[in-house]
């Protein structure tokens, strides 16, 4: 699959690019006024705006999770009443999925890095990029309003007819928030697709693109093609509440299963919106700290596209017990297994890359190694769930909860935090404290496993998800899980503290602290407003490590 060895070898022996000191002020110093930030069309500043926004949402969503875990330490759930509990898991799910996981890597790291990695001055449509942030904030306000005004207890999946008929009226406001957030996602996707196609520096062929760019590209395709379906689904739920027409309500002649089809047609691919950028970040981290070109570069690149494509064909595995036909179930089961193939290819190739290279166990690499372990567990348990018969047993139990947290938190959040650490010197111009970084990564890994591994057992033993109380015999595992969540919470606090601390006290970062090969490292840290003094010309492959 790779290019002939000769041409590669010639490429690899290039000396590292020299970084010329910039005469221009950095993007942070360029215009310090509030207007300079709020009306900026600079992709780097927009990335920072997103960083603040999603960190805020992550905080609220994590708080809701902490409340739930605290509540579940006792079988009776003494902390909150069941109604509040339902509102807590809804707000946790809605904020985490639409306001943290979906935008995290694409909107923060992607916005910041994509043009830098392509050697471009900006994304293809800078003003649309800024608009996407405003749309995102507006969406967040709708959702927060629903939360403050009384909360919603439907769960993040809004299953009908409960959400469309019986739940309280704040469903409309929250659905509106999600509807609007979708447009932000579509704007980002359209922008990235055009940027990757058209804004590449001379010589930067598709075969030389960093894998992070490939993964953002695949993600953008999914964003553009899946999100609008969700928007209409949310619209139909809102309309059904307002007018009582009965598209989804069986009592009025509608079909609740139609809702599930429409919802999962978006929401399964959305899992890949969340995880694919994580894959990209992990590829960069592993290549950088193994000092090694990624083994099977083109296979890793194409597996992202394969996952994006297959992701559209597997939504029915959320509906095995929904009375869909057994033949549909069989097909969806088979297709779901297929997604494991490109995913496994990636894991194998990352592993081989590390084996071939000389590994430095820095903070980002610890996150990447953690990612490999957690994603593998999450992926393999996904196969359990894709198996028709097994799924009937563990459907809607904590097994499912554990599985998707292993994928989305274990995979995506580890990728995000790893990527944030890898590019932190580039973004801020400051180095974080390496020792604290390692402690943080380790704590998160331990805390995460202690939180979610017991949930596999709970689910296998039959504890249903979304329940506020449980039989006594499940208490031990639940207490373990809550203890893990405490460690995990502490682990998340650490990066928040030492990364902010680094802004004042951190060492000044050189242009290329990790001696990495990407184009983004050939410009000063933090980069000047227009990224590069002169447009770089690329004459070698993405991971040309010479030592």
């Amino acid at each position, binding site marked *: 699959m790779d290019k002939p060895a000769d041409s590669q070898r010639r490429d690899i022996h290039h000396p590292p690019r020299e970084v010329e000191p910039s005469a221009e002020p950095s993007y942070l110093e360029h215009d310090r006024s509030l207007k300079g930030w709020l009306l900026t069309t600079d992709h780097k500043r927009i990335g920072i705006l997103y960083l603040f926004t999603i960190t805020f949402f992550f905080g609220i969503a994590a708080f809701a999770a902490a409340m739930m875990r605290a509540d579940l330490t006792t079988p009776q759930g003494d902390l909150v009443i069941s109604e509040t509990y339902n509102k807590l898991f809804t707000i946790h799910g809605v904020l985490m999925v639409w306001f943290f996981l979906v935008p995290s890597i694409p909107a923060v790291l992607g916005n910041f890095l994509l043009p830098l990695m392509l050697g*471009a*001055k*900006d994304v*293809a*449509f*800078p003003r*649309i990029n800024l608009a996407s942030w405003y749309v995102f904030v507006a969406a967040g306000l709708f959702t927060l309003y629903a939360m403050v005004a009384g909360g919603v207890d439907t769960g993040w999946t809004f299953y009908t007819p409960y959400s469309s008929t019986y739940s309280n009226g704040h469903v409309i406001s929250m659905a509106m928030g999600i509807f609007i957030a979708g447009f932000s996602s*579509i704007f980002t*996707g*359209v*922008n990235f*697709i*055009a940027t990757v*196609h*058209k*804004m590449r520096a001379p010589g930067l062929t598709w075969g030389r693109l960093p894998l992070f760019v490939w993964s953002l590209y695949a993600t953008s395709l999914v964003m*553009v*093609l*899946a*999100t*609008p*379906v969700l*928007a*209409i*689904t949310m*619209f*139909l739920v809102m*309309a059904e509440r*307002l*007018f*009582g*027409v*009965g*598209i989804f309500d069986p009592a*009025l*002649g*509608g*079909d609740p299963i*139609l809702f599930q*089809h*429409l919802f999962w047609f978006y929401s399964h691919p959305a899992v890949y919106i969340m995880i694919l950028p994580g894959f990209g970040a992990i590829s960069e981290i592993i290549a950088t700290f193994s000092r090694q070109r990624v083994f099977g570069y083109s296979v890793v690149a194409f597996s992202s596209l394969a996952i994006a494509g297959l992701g559209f064909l597997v939504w029915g595995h959320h509906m095995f017990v929904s009375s869909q036909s057994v033949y549909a179930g069989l097909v969806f089961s088979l297709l779901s297994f297929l997604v494991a193939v490109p995913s496994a290819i990636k894991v194998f190739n990352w592993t081989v890359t590390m084996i071939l290279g000389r590994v430095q166990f820095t903070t980002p690499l610890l996150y990447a190694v953690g990612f490999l372990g957690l994603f593998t567990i999450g992926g393999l348990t996904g196969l359990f769930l894709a198996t028709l018969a097994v799924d009937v047993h563990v459907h809607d139990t904590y097994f499912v909860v554990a599985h998707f947290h292993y994928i989305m938190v274990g995979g995506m959040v580890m990728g995000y935090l790893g990527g944030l650490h890898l590019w932190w010197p580039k973004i801020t111009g400051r180095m974080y404290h390496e020792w604290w970084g390692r402690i943080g990564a380790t704590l998160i890994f331990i805390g995460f496993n202690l939180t979610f591994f017991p949930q596999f057992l709970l689910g296998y033993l039959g504890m249903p998800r979304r329940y506020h109380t449980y039989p006594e015999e499940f208490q031990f595992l639940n207490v373990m899980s809550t203890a893990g969540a405490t460690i995990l919470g502490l682990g998340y606090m650490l990066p928040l503290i030492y990364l902010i601390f680094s802004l004042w006290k951190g060492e000044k970062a050189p242009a290329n602290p990790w001696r990495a090969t990407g184009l983004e490292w050939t410009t000063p840290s933090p980069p000047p407003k227009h990224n590069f003094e002169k447009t770089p010309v690329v004459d070698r492959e993405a991971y040309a490590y010479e030592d």
Partner: protein
Amino acid sequence: MGHLSQQVHEAYHDAPHEKRTGYLGMWAFLSSEILFFGAFFLAYTVIRSYHLEGFREAASELSLFWGTLNTAVLLVSSYLIAFGEKALEARKMKAGLWSWGCAAFLGVVFLAIKLYEYWEKAHKHHIPGLDFKAEDFEHPHSAELFQFLYFSMTGLHAFHLFVGICWIGGMVWWFRSRKGRVIQPTYVTCAALYWHFVDLVWVFLYPLLYLIRA
């Protein structure tokens, strides 16, 4: 009157680069729009399969005359947009702006006819959810579902058309106000693409809502 020219924004290498980037972005956006309407088409298909009789009954209530006239109006406007785009590219500014102006006007005509149809329905109390007059139909519930889909699908289309009218009308106004100054050709083609897309959606809505009847 302005004119089309090759002035390039700083982010792009040259004019063809800017043009191709703009087109790609527009096509990516339109592909997302197709799925936006696609969810409605799926919902329509599924609900129709449950409520065949009621859908036929309610569809025959729609005015074939107004629907057909509207289709004709939109198709002519699409022609005018295409003609105007070519004229502008050939720097025949007057012809281009006139045909775009007329196309935007036809868009307004379409919306006026649509509003008249809505008004007629409101008059007969056929708007779902608001004092819906069930006794007019043999299958009142199915008919209400049809009416709901009719209003939301044509409503979403009308909203898109409204955006298109503002866009095309704004372009015409902008051209005239930028006397002698340049205008990116990308903007012209993207506006035209959008207008054609909105017309295309109607070409699917018209048979689905008006033509399949008892």
